[in-house]
């Protein structure tokens, strides 16, 4: 052996938020292994919440006290830059809120291995068995979500994608009620997700063939300098795009979203609709802006079309839905389209890019809180067999429980982007960046799609307030402290971001100012 290997340098302080989350997940697994059954959830809940809060504090500390790093960490594998720190903070808060929702009620199956409807299942329910493994699984998923938008090379991005998705595939299949639907959702999500990961990996391989590296920065320099292999670059970029667009549920890769959102336990749906979307958008923007930034003349028309298709499909198909969770899923697809408008709004000037990025970041925060709140309300409207999923059951809710119906109506208005709600400023920030980036037609489509979307949100509001309640209507459960806190926090965030958005806009702007490290 003639060469000695230089030991790698890993900036543990920079990566601390992520390492805390992963560490807590591993401790959670050990708790599963060694703690007696009756103690487990008493240990898991504080452990999970504390680790998420601690990671959030570390993120703030990094951004405020130590400044935003200008170099990728861990030998160039992880880029902890302004946008990444902002996204980390967002994901950690949303995950914290989702964990409060998970802890709130019995949303999860008693014994996943028992066949639905079997005597075994009944016995497990009778004994009050529970899967406390859910907490470490959620932490692993959150760890993956933190890594995905910060991945500075495509290998780390792929590993992060899997770390994020695998626990979610599992958690989707663990709903307590309508179990067959839940298991079907998990299998669909798993198969389609594995397929899209394969696309991502194939794209990575082709880009490696083109650029000779999987570093986003090196791919970016190769885009301008390597000649004669453009088809490799185009096919690779397209496949990478398929993998990323699948994760955000953009049309034509949106088919999984309604099924999975409907089947998954509602707190997990909330986590997916908020955290996963934030993480996937962070990664999408990083890959397209940093890695394929030199190719923007080629990918912009494609994403243009995808954004239009996504907005239209999301808004139009939402109208035809009768299941409340499916409706929210299509609404999430439409919001993915609105966010894509921001991804296209790049320009030559750094200021243009920064304003588009800050718009996207603000939109993600606003939408994340509102959607978690909306799903929290969904968990509280119950029938005998679980959540009252059919929209007709929601008729007259405003007369039974004006407060809850009012809160839900407020969330729906925020989704529609009515002024004085957070959704308005989110859309405004993204659309304004798109207009100054020269994507006016896209913004017009976006506004029309918003109007169509507003139609079905208002339809639900009309249904809740202006129709007569059914005689055997659903009951409103008294929320647990966790669920009540989630709803309260979501209302607060939606109001504050709608009335006084400046601090968060400023924060998003300063996070976006430095753009991505290369």
């Amino acid at each position, binding site marked *: 052996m003639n060469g000695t290997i230089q030991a790698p340098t890993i900036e543990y302080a920079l990566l601390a938020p992520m390492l805390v989350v992963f560490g807590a997940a591993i401790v959670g697994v050990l708790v599963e292994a060694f703690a007696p059954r009756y103690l487990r959830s008493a240990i898991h809940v504080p452990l999970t919440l504390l680790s998420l809060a601690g990671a959030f504090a570390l993120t703030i500390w990094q951004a405020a006290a130590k400044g935003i790093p200008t170099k990728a960490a861990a030998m160039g*594998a992880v880029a902890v830059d302004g946008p990444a720190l902002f996204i980390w903070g967002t994901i950690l808060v949303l995950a914290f809120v989702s964990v409060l929702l998970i802890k709130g009620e019995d949303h999860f199956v008693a014994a996943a291995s028992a066949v639905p409807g079997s005597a075994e299942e009944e016995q497990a329910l009778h004994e009050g068995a529970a899967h406390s493994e859910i907490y470490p699984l959620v932490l692993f998923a959150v*760890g993956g979500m933190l890594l995905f938008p910060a991945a500075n090379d495509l290998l780390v991005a792929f590993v992060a994608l899997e770390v994020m998705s695998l626990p979610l595939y599992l958690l989707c299949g663990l709903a307590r009620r309508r179990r067959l639907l839940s298991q079907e959702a998990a299998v669909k999500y798993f198969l389609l997700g594995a397929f899209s990961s394969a696309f991502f990996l194939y794209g990575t391989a082709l880009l490696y063939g083109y650029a000779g590296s999987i570093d986003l920065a090196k791919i970016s320099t190769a885009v301008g300098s390597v000649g004669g292999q453009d088809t490799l670059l185009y096919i690779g970029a397209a496949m990478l795009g398929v993998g990323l667009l699948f994760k955000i549920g953009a049309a034509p890769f949106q088919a999984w979203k309604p099924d999975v959102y409907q089947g998954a336990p509602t707190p997990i749906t909330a986590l997916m609709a908020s955290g996963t979307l934030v993480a996937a958008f962070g990664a999408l923007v990083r890959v397209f802006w940093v890695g394929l930034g030199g190719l923007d003349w080629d990918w912009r028309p494609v994403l243009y079309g995808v954004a239009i298709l996504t907005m239209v499909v999301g808004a139009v198909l939402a109208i035809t839905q009768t299941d409340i969770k499916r409706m929210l899923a299509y609404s999430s697809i439409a919001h993915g389209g609105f966010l894509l408008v921001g991804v296209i709004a790049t320009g030559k000037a750094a200021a243009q890019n920064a304003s588009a990025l800050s718009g996207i970041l603000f939109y993600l925060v606003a939408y994340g809180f509102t959607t978690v709140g909306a799903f929290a309300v969904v968990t509280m409207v119950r029938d005998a067999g679980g959540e009252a999923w059919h929209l007709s059951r929601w008729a007259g809710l405003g007369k039974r429980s004006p407060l809850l119906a009012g809160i839900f109506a407020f969330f729906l208005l925020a989704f529609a982007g009515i002024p004085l709600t957070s959704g308005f400023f989110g859309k405004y920030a993204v659309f304004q960046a798109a207009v100054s980036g020269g994507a006016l037609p896209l913004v017009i489509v976006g506004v029309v799609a918003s109007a169509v979307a507003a139609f079905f949100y208002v339809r639900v509001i009309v249904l809740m307030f202006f129709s007569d309640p059914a005689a055997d209507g659903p009951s409103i459960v008294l929320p647990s402290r966790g669920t009540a806190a989630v709803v309260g926090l979501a209302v607060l965030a939606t109001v504050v971001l709608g009335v006084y958005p400046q601090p968060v806009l400023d924060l998003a702007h300063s996070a976006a100012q430095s753009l991505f490290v290369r």
Partner: protein
Amino acid sequence: MGESITFWVLAVVSVIAALGLVFSRRAVYSALMLGVVMLSLAVLYAVQDAPFLAAVQIIVYTGAVMMLFLFVLMLVGVDSSDSLVETIRGQRFWAIVAGLGFAALLGLGIGNTLIAAPKGLAVANQNGNVPSLAELIFTRHVFAFEVTSALLITAALGAMVLAHRERTEPKPTQRDLSRARFVEFGRHGKNPAPLPGPGTYARHNAIDMPALLPDGTVSPLSVNRVIARHEAEEGTLAPEVAQILQQEEEGK
């Protein structure tokens, strides 16, 4: 020269095996064909100055992953065949069209690129193949490899959650089972002994032959009712067994 001979031999073998993998009707054959494809790839890697990759390909893919496939197939049942009914009309046709279109797109796209003369792995392998790989894995890509551990833990935990059912009551011992049998005997007169086995005559060695009691009559307990019913349909039922079944029918 040796390299191109190896390539052309293995190219034919692996493409034929890959086609067999897709078109074979039996899952086990498909799995074995996959093994052939993986082994040919391993040899190709070895020829192209990547001995470590070749060894990993054989140990991990052919050794572990393939065996896992086979285990699953054996557990599901070798003879079980997939339902080939189209649930969505025209799905198969469009799947074939889309698949061929995608293959053509990839083939043309990659075929059209100007690929510079291959450099070989001589530069990368300067310090030896394995040490060079080790350097990359333990320096530049160390974080990716560490994070992979989260994936493995998740997979193990997930398998536990989905498949493991914790026993909530103690497992019945031989003693408990025996006791339960005699309680049943005391209450309902159910025979606590095992059922008598089928009889084996000098001319037969088959389970459809009834056992004979010491007095030479047929023991009704030894007659397998399912087989007897089939035989009655085919008309090959032994007359003494038919008589017993007849008597039982009348007894009801």
